[in-house]
């Protein structure tokens, strides 16, 4: 625990009531808000440049296609998290100096994984409102009893008639944003149109291995670590019950910082890169609240 936490958190939390615990929790959490997380801004735009540069590098044979495929899969796996900070307006809230950058970052990168930024935002905020609700959580289809079932479920829910797609569109409709349904269709048709154009221009394998297949693999990876691992199995509903702190077998970086997902659900304005530090400070309070914690 940091010295700042020692200064704030009393040694014996059992003497505090719910209101006092919540006040203390907020006091700590607020310390981590309000700063622009420049690291994730650099991550978003740097990753966009890396992925775009793979195309000429592969086409002009500066790197082999297999290496391009590996790098593209890593790159597309790294697209979502910066947009996730932007979905929560962490780079800049409406009316603030950096709001334009927040929105630019989201829109400029989400297309790489063929999803409109606004759809990601609307559905993700819905996930926060209804986490683990079997009828309303847009990510409920990622729930599974074990890791292999989770991977299979993620594959099944990428099929044309899968429930996951319907849940996302239903969420957009509930939010009064039917325009996002049309926009999602435009993204999808645009993606397939570009893939077909590339394939018939002599770049079929490049299109397949730099965009289509990496997008599928990245999506499965993201659903596994961002959705299944922190919310399933056996998690309930409610502020301190719908997600957990967990120890990943592949470490925090390879599980994309999701070991500390509980901090994100409780205080979604905290930047991703600050969630481990915030967790360490909040830990005694979360323990007092009965949260599930493995570290």
């Amino acid at each position, binding site marked *: 625990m940091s010295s700042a936490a020692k200064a704030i958190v009393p040694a014996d939390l059992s003497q505090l009531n719910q209101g006092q615990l919540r006040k203390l929790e907020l006091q700590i959490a607020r310390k981590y808000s309000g700063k622009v997380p420049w690291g994730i801004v650099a991550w978003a735009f740097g990753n966009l440049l890396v992925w775009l540069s793979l195309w000429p590098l592969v086409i002009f044979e500066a790197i082999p296609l297999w290496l391009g495929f590996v790098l593209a899969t890593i790159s597309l796996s790294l697209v979502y998290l910066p947009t996730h900070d932007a979905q929560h307006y962490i780079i800049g809230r409406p009316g603030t100096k950096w709001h334009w950058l927040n929105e630019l970052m989201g829109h400029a990168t989400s297309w790489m994984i063929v999803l409109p930024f606004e759809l990601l935002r609307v559905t993700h905020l819905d996930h926060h409102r209804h986490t683990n609700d079997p009828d309303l959580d847009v990510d409920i289809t990622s729930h599974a009893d074990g890791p292999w079932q989770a991977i299979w479920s993620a594959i099944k829910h990428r*099929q*044309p008639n899968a429930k996951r797609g319907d849940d996302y569109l239903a969420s957009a409709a509930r939010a009064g944003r039917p325009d996002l349904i049309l926009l999602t*269709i435009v993204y999808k048709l645009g993606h*397939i149109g570009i893939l*077909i154009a590339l394939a*018939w221009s002599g770049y079929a394998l490049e299109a397949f291995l730099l965009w289509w297949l990496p997008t599928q693999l990245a999506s499965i990876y993201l659903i596994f670590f961002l959705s299944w691992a922190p919310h399933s199995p056996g998690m309930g509903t409610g502020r301190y019950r719908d997600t957990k702190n967990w120890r990943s077998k592949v470490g925090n970086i390879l599980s994309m910082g999701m070991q500390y997902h509980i901090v994100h659900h409780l205080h979604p304005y905290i930047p991703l890169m600050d969630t481990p530090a915030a967790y360490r400070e909040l830990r005694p309070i979360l323990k007092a609240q009965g949260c599930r914690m493995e570290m």
Partner: protein
Amino acid sequence: MQFALTWVMKLLPLIFGLGFLAPVIAAAMQALALPTPFDLPPLSLGFVIGGLWGLFATITGRWL
């Protein structure tokens, strides 16, 4: 417009199979120097596999 979009979305797996999978299969066969059955041109084989797979996905709503 909505009618046309609905149909395009319904037929999207078939469009994907014929428009994208077929040339990908043909390019992969050529890159790996794999022989085709009955001496079919690689693109013809791509159309057969991509078309049938796309049709299956269009009818059943799943690729796998």
